[in-house]
């Protein structure tokens, strides 16, 4: 009997003595009030990681929709069926329903940080403002990608809410662009308030030259310029182009500096890092350049194709996919390896944005100067002397062509540009009768977003 009791006591004692309150041993909980400097730094770095998560995939997919790229992926037919023929499937998170969730995840990460940054007693008020300015700028960039992908629909903006709350309402695209523009302004205010203080975290190699609040403003203004030019071409016109020129003035635009000057997403192969998915060994790559890139490339005065073509695209053994078969023998060498950075925005784009804004404000001479600057410096092409005298649509065409080669495979620019300037029907259709013509103007709203709003 004694043995029985002993055993019972032992068992019950064991059960009672053990602490059942097990905290998550694997990953940190969401950032809470009064975060430490290290927690703020981790959250800020997380915003760059979150913003980078979908970026390369976005460039590829928008590139396919705009016929910069093909992906002959035996693992998935949808790169040549769904994206080229349709219908776009809002229910597949990697295709029609893509370029939404990851951006909104980063937006939530930013909101989590913004919600508590005011309580961070370990940071000075200026440092808090620096964090706000940074987080809101990155958040604006995330919103802009969602907008770029879903331009004919509308998107939710008021998303700083609990997951158990009803989903945020949709707003029209015009208000969304305005919202992004205003968010960049708010961010700029905070960066100004931060003054000469340093960011309380390291922004990494992608932000070299833009890693203090005072210099980060130049990046903020560069994004603002892009948004205002987009708005200008979407119907806002002169007021937005004027705002764009103002923003460019406060940005890092510099015709004399390297065209690669700018802000980048950094990639790497270190522990926990992300290798650049747009880099593939050209010989065995399954991502291809669209043959029209070669066909419409101009020849340099001394012979040879546009430098921008030869530095970004290389000929390889042909490959094909789909029915009827699509074929390409062009591989991208835009990125040199798994650790190559991908531009977010750089000087070359800013110069072309200035040209577009000037053209929109009826300054064709200023526009032509910038266009020729890019043609000569970046492409090795001859300047077009008579350009300023050409019609506005013609000059715009020249801007779009320079943007095509200058910004090839680095932001889905071709698709965005052709659409916002009403030229989507000029995107080449490879298989008439099979492929959707004109190319898809927008991705659909993801199924999960729609289902979540049903009763």
């Amino acid at each position, binding site marked *: 009997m004694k043995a029985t009791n002993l*055993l*019972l006591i032992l068992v019950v004692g*064991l059960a009672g003595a*053990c602490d*059942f309150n*097990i905290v*998550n*041993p*694997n*990953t940190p909980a*969401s*950032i809470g009030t009064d975060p430490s400097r290290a927690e703020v730094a981790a*959250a800020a*770095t*997380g*915003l760059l*990681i*979150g913003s980078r*998560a979908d970026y390369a*995939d976005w460039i590829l997919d928008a590139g396919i929709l705009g016929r910069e790229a093909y992906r002959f*992926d*035996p*693992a998935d*037919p949808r790169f040549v069926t769904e994206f080229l023929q349709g219908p776009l*499937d809002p229910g*597949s*998170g*990697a*295709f029609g329903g*893509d370029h*939404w*969730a990851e951006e*909104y*995840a*980063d*937006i939530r990460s930013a909101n989590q940080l913004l919600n508590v940054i005011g309580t961070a007693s370990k940071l000075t008020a200026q440092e808090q403002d620096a964090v706000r300015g940074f987080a809101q700028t990155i958040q604006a960039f995330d919103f802009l990608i969602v907008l770029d992908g879903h331009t004919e629909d509308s998107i*939710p903006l008021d*998303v700083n809410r609990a*997951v158990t709350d009803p*989903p945020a309402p949709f707003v029209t695209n015009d208000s969304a662009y305005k919202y992004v523009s205003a968010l960049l302004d708010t961010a700029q205010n905070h960066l100004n308030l931060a003054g000469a203080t340093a960011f309380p*975290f390291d922004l*990494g190699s992608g932000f070299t030259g833009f890693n203090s609040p005072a210099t980060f403003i130049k990046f903020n203004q560069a994004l603002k310029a892009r948004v205002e030019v987009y708005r200008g071409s979407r119907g806002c016109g002169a007021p937005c182009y004027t705002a764009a020129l103002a923003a460019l003035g406060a940005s890092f635009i510099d015709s004399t500096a390297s065209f690669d000057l700018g802000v980048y997403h950094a990639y*790497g*192969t270190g522990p*926990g*890092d*992300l*290798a650049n998915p747009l880099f593939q*060994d050209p*010989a*065995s*790559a399954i991502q291809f350049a669209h043959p029209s890139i070669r066909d419409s490339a101009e020849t340099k005065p001394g012979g040879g194709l546009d430098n921008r073509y030869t530095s970004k695209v290389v000929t390889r*053994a*042909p490959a094909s996919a789909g*029915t009827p078969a699509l074929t390409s023998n062009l591989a991208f060498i835009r990125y040199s390896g*798994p650790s190559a950075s991908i531009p977010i925005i750089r000087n070359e784009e800013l110069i072309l944005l200035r040209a577009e804004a000037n053209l929109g404000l009826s300054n064709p001479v200023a526009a032509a100067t910038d266009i020729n600057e890019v043609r000569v410096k970046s492409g090795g092409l001859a300047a077009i002397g008579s350009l300023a005298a050409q019609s506005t649509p013609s000059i715009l065409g020249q801007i779009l062509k320079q943007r095509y080669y200058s910004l090839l495979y680095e932001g889905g620019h071709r698709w965005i540009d052709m659409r916002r300037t009403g030229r989507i029907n000029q995107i080449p259709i490879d298989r008439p009768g099979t492929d959707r013509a004109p190319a898809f103007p927008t991705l659909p709203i993801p*199924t*999960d*977003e729609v*289902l979540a709003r049903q009763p």
Partner: protein
Amino acid sequence: MVKRTSLITLGLLLAVGVATAWAQQRQITGRITTAVTGEAVVGANVSVVGTAIVALSGDDGRFTLAAPAGDVTLLVRRIGYRRRQVAVSATQSAVEVSMEQDVFNLEAVVVTGQATTVEQRNLANAVSTLNAEQLNRAPTPTIESALQGKIPGALIQMNSGAPGGGGQINLRGVTTINGGVDPLIVVDGLIVSNDAIPSGANAVTAAQAGGNPHNQDNPVNRIADLNPADIDRVEVLKGASAAAIYGAQAANGVVIITTRRGQVGKPRFTLTQRLGTSEVAHSLQSRNWDSTAAVAAFGAAAAPFCKGGCPTFDNGGNLFNRRDLSTETDASVSGGTDQTAYYLSGLVKHDAGTAPNTGYQKQSLRVNLDQRLGDRFRVGVSTNVVHSLAQRGLSNNDNTVTSPYFVFAFTPNFVDLRPVKDAAGKDSFPVNPFAPSNPFQTVALLKNDEDVWRILGTANVKFDAVTTERHHLQLVVNGGVDFFNQRNNILSPPELQFEPQDGQPGTVVLGKNSDLRLQLTTTLAHTYTPASGSYSATTSGGVQYENRDLNTTSILGRSLLSGQQNVDQATSINITQELQPVKNVGLYGQEELLALNQRLLLTVGARADRSSVNGDPDKYHFFPKGAASYRVIQPFGGVDEIKFRTAVGQTGNPPLFGSKFNPDATGTTGGRFGVTVGQRAGDPGIKPERQTEVEGGLDAQLGNNRATLSLTLYQKTVSDLLLEQTLAPSTGQLTRIFNGGKLRNRGVEVAAAVTPVRTPELNWIFRATFFANRSKILELPVPTFQTLGFGTSLGAFQIETGKSATQIVGTEGVVGDANPKFQMSFSSDVDYKRWSLGFLWDWKHGGDVINLTQLLYDFGSNADDWTSGGQQRFNTWNSGKTKVYVQDGSYLKLREVTLSYSLPPDVTSHIFGGISYARFSISGRNLLRFTPYVGLDPEVSNFGNQAIGRNIDVAPFPPNRSFFFSVDLGF
């Protein structure tokens, strides 16, 4: 305390006193033999009815016991035989007893509580019991395949044909949507781990990418470690009404495995040697090209292959073409005295794989000991050490085109991918010009090894605190440990064709995973039988404590020099770790009342559980049960006995580890650490799902014990479902875990067995089972959402109110359902003289499979029926009709067939100076298959074990059939 102590003293006195009173009145001797063959029955329990006098029969079947004067009745029992009652008159001193085999398992004793059992004939639940003979009809690599087709109410399917296992036991339909899916596996009282830890092959396949968060590494679930030859019997508790005593963990049912133990008698030595082989049962053919079509599809690159017409090579068949020798050696020694019994067994097994560099090896050592310590204590110890090595190859979905059947889908058959010998005599692999990899090179050079060491140990102490005529109080303490260490080694060397693509040639993964489980169960059981003997009541109660500690770590290295295999030689290294500590406590109590001349059984019980995985770890969740059965003896002609039974109970399914947390994700950029929002929102109030099951049925024995019929109807309702709601992605998170909603399963199970012929020379048993289940989502507090799949256009499982839980939707709406319309099985065992023949057919009718392998072939315009149907099929899909790739997965499989011959005793007595038996068998597994499904196998799951979302076919490892020749010797 005082009272109890005095009870014991009283009990002791009574026992001594009774023994004295009965001493040496007279002796009865006897011999026990089998009814059919007349062989001696060893170890039969002979008791004098109404007394505690017991004797065991020896090796020659003889027994001697001291019986009181006067007429007595002897009760003779032995596992595997029907009980016999024999009247012995006052003057008779010798008796011959012949026992009939218990072909229908009617004498089995079934576990109904943590320490209590009920005889099958009284059982109030449809518990399926299998003995060793039924389990081991044909050699099997893992226990799941040994159970296929044998349990009505179970859908048991392997996930692929990969060596080493990986399969799912699904009992009575869908019991959860986002909770755990595997039944609780209990081995000798210990809840053992059935973890399925991914190998890390995703580093090569990148299947879990491109927006797909689910791992597709084709993992082995660790029940594969058990040695089927060690199993004495398996009981399957299929639903809450039977399994409630296992409480919060038992919603998927409980599989109770009891290993063999020593029997009283001389040492018995058995040796089984098997030799055999496995071969691929089915492969996929591809299109035969002409040169015009080839050049049109593949461009100029195809022209050199098709000069003067395209040749054809069966690359799939050529790769999976191995029929190497598989061997298995089982040996065991068992025996014992009335104080000590022992069972020792060893296994050495090697299953050759059907592709180069694949296969499975297992070595197992088991020692089971039972020791009596005086009259009151019994100690049983079970220990098992197992080592296994599975060379899994590469299979399933990928995004890098490296999984062999993925590659073959895009490789035209005019290319011969087989290696050729170079000048140095080494294999040189041709570059596949039409896909990024050559599977011949991949399987030859890529290593995907899973090496597991596992130790299972339990100690069981029984203490008979009180033993009198009226009272029996027993304390049972069961402690156990289950530990395994799983090492995964994946090496994809830089010279592989696909490796340079990502700019980091060479990939190596080192996975080190361990799980330590400790368990202590203490049960007190008291049985009271009044003087009238009109009923007996068994009261039991106890506590179970469980501690689990799963630790998975994986190191992934990329960019390796040729010939290097250590992770530290890689230039780019990533390390992941996950810990899953869990603590559970359960308190349980149960009352069983057996009355009306053992015809009525009433049971009530309850269990209360708390667990660290719940939102409130201190809260006890309560799971009650109740059951009743009543036997009617010979109600009408031709019916020996009918038992009517009904049972109701509740069980739970605990939240998966981490459901209560709201974790962020982490990563780095440029060496700086960053935190981002996690994809999944947890619920700090999460609690177990609650399943309520009502079942009822009848068991009948017919035609003077020639046939049995068992019929069961059940309804299971699962409420507080663990749901992983898909959120509006604009919230920034993808899913949210919470409790809510309700689903229902209704089903019918029938098991019938008949012995059409039963003579001393010919004995024929025929068994059949039938099972059908329908599920329905009754309530869903969130909008309709999709679970597994690759997007709507490729078929996705959609959870929707009022619909079947396993419905599959496509672009155009509902396109199928993975749930079978019904399942049946037929098995037969014929013994003729010294020959025996057994077979088992397993039939699944209905249940759709999403055939993405065929879609891949069609995408490559490479299906063998491309011109006659494939092109049309692909165009139909492309026009928004997912239905063409959601196909009927019905099958009829000849799972097991065995023919054996036992040498006659006059021969065996001359072998090695006399052995007790020698048997020769030839057996086969999965020899025949009939299916309308066009694919490698409709028995497939790309995502492994899943509640909903099996039946997705993406380039699986092809299925096997195997043949074995076996020799069994007994000494």
